[in-house]
């Protein structure tokens, strides 16, 4: 929220102008949206505003773009849509932002207040619809309330555990005259997120760490949201214990760091999964014991005590009992924990050498890898790995959802926070392209690659038109295996290779390069390993237009390792019907 008093304070204006002045006062510099009848009064003052409005081709694109923008900048992303279908098209991105704790403010128009409840044209109860997955939402029918509600919306979205807030404004509230008054303070009796952790919980955590012999840092996306990566690295190096970073935390700790065991979970590394399973202490920082990480909960890390640090008290004990709960901002938590741990270690320095040797042995014995296709066709993992290598560690990557997403999390080395954006909790196919658009707007000097699937790409590629027309030169790699690849993998493994409705035939239709060209992008294709690097380099050389590369890859590649849904992490497979050779490991 801007600290200064807006010059418009005390001025008479329409509710619509008040809305736009409020967004300006909240510090908004860009919003993604698409107008329609109910929100139309707001679009007139938008025409004159300093806020850059990017006209999307589908409201879902606006929502994911706002999410991508927010994940890259750390500021709230803003999307705007009209009533009815415009608003309901924001439902998926809002649910997505809620699951991944992304600060997004959505503005929707509503039918005039006298028409609410009459099944009016383009009427939808969007406040009711979005209650389950917004942090809070509003229906405004009095124009005088607009500045206060907008100020509250940004405050709620960006503080505590971040999340989406929706503000639905009736058309007559936009049209009526009001006096603009930006609030000087925000008072919400029912909202007071606890930021500073209790000192007792910090000293309890430090004592527990000093007593452990097999500790592991279980790092979640909260560390990135709190900008706590530098503090995390300091804390880790003081203790010298292994680290795992969840799908939402890739980049929170450098992949190249020797203490990094990789990503845990359903497609995690053997070392990361085993580190959690065999630990005697989980130092959980901004993570939430998601089922994709724990596997079958009753068998998860059964010998481990748990320190659970999270800003959301409702996460403590939700899935797993916490022996020490630390409620607060994770940056403040780690900052307080560093001296406390140093003091505790001065009294009792645990010997972690055996534990580290065991984990390093697993890390070197079971690195992530893949076989090249025997028929000489393109390997999807290799495509993604080479894009990562050639574009470098300052590149921002987004992904859709499925095999390509898992490979992008596995085979690209993330060294910095906010360089890996994906739909973790919601698993929203189609997230990749619009999120890349928002990321590029938020970080215009960065190279932004969307690693997408041929299925995902066909859900939201229309935003490439938006990119082409608005000078948002993203790069898109379609990992085209002509299938809904992850679903097909499950059919291979669990449904006797009966491929019901997972074949997309997308090596025949659509012609992706022609589709890209039709949308004002450069379209490239690659289907031979010998052309791979030069195709990526060609895409890297084009920076004045969006680029789409159709990588036509081998169809049968699978994501490994894998912990099948509902099974124990102890059942991790490194290839089909192949478990790690536990007997050769001293565990």
């Amino acid at each position, binding site marked *: 929220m801007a600290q200064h008093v807006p010059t418009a304070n005390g001025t008479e204006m329409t509710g619509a102008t008040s809305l736009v002045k409020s967004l300006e006062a909240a510090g908004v510099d860009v919003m993604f949206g698409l107008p329609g009848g109910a929100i139309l009064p707001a679009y007139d003052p938008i025409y004159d505003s300093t806020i850059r409005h990017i006209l999307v081709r589908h409201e879902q694109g606006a929502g994911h773009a706002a999410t991508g923008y927010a994940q890259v900048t750390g500021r709230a992303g803003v999307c705007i849509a009209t009533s009815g279908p415009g608003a309901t098209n924001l439902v998926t991105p809002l649910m997505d932002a809620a699951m991944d704790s992304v600060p997004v403010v959505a503005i929707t128009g509503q039918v005039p207040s006298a028409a609410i409840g009459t099944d009016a044209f383009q009427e939808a109860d969007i*406040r*009711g619809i979005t*209650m*389950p997955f917004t*942090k*809070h939402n509003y*229906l405004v029918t009095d124009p005088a309330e607009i500045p206060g509600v907008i100020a509250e919306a940004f405050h*709620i979205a960006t503080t*505590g*555990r971040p999340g989406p807030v929706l503000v639905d404004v009736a058309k007559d509230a936009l049209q009526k005259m009001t006096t603009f008054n930006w609030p000087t303070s925000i008072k*919400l*009796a*029912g*909202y*007071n*997120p*606890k930021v500073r952790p209790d000192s007792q919980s910090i000293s309890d955590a430090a004592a527990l760490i000093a007593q452990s012999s097999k500790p592991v840092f279980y790092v979640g996306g909260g560390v990135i949201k709190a900008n706590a990566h530098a503090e995390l690295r300091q804390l880790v190096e003081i203790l010298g214990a292994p680290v795992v970073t969840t799908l939402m935390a890739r980049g929170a700790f450098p992949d190249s760091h020797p203490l990094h065991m990789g990503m845990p979970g359903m497609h995690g590394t053997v070392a990361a999964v085993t580190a959690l399973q065999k630990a005697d202490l989980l130092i959980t920082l901004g993570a939430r014991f998601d089922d994709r990480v724990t596997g079958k909960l009753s068998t998860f890390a059964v010998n481990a005590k748990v320190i659970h640090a999270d*800003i*959301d*008290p*409702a996460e*403590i*004990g*939700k899935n797993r009992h916490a022996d020490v709960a630390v*409620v607060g901002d994770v940056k403040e938590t780690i900052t307080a924990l560093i001296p406390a741990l140093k003091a505790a270690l001065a009294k009792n320095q645990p010997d972690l050498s055996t534990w580290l040797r065991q984990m390093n042995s697993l890390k070197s014995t079971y690195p992530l890898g893949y076989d090249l296709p025997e028929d000489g066709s393109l390997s999807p993992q290799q495509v993604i790995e080479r894009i990562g290598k050639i574009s470098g560690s300052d590149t921002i990557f987004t992904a859709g959802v499925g095999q390509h997403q898992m490979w992008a999390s596995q085979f690209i080395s993330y060294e910095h926070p906010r360089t890996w954006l994906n739909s973790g909790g919601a698993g929203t196919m189609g997230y990749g392209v619009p999120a890349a658009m928002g990321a590029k707007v938020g970080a215009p000097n960065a190279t932004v690659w969307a690693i997408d699937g041929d299925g995902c790409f066909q859900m939201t590629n229309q935003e490439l038109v938006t990119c082409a027309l608005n000078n948002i030169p993203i790069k898109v790699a379609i990992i085209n295996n002509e299938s809904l690849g992850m679903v097909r993998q499950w059919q291979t493994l669990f449904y006797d290779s009966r491929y019901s409705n997972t074949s997309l035939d997308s090596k025949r239709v659509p012609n992706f390069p022609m589709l890209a060209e039709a949308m004002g992008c450069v379209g490239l294709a690659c289907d031979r390993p010998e052309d791979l690097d030069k195709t990526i380099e060609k895409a890297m050389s084009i920076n004045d237009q969006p680029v789409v590369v159709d990588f036509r890859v081998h169809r049968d590649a699978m994501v490994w390792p894998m912990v099948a849904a509902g099974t124990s992490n102890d059942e991790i497979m490194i290839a089909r019907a192949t478990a790690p050779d536990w007997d050769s490991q001293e565990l």
Partner: protein
Amino acid sequence: MTTNRRQHTLEVLVENEPGVLARVAGLFSRRAFNIETLNVGPTEDSSISKMIIGVAVEGHSLEQVIAQLDKLVSVISIKDVTPKAQEVHDTQPDYQN
């Protein structure tokens, strides 16, 4: 039938605003918490309403019900007023978010 089914009564102060009943009822529904009884009435402060909620805790801890309830911005405070319960869950500030 599970044997550890426990009854609790919560006194919840909420903002007196449209939709607040839907927020509370919807939370119980989507988190699979059980409401046995629900009573809403006014308080001396016309901007605040009081809900008396009978909760059957089954498969969740009471702490989890209270913590989720307290995440609702419209919820101001929550007290466990179960007749036999000695402890009072003051939501300032541990359960605030």
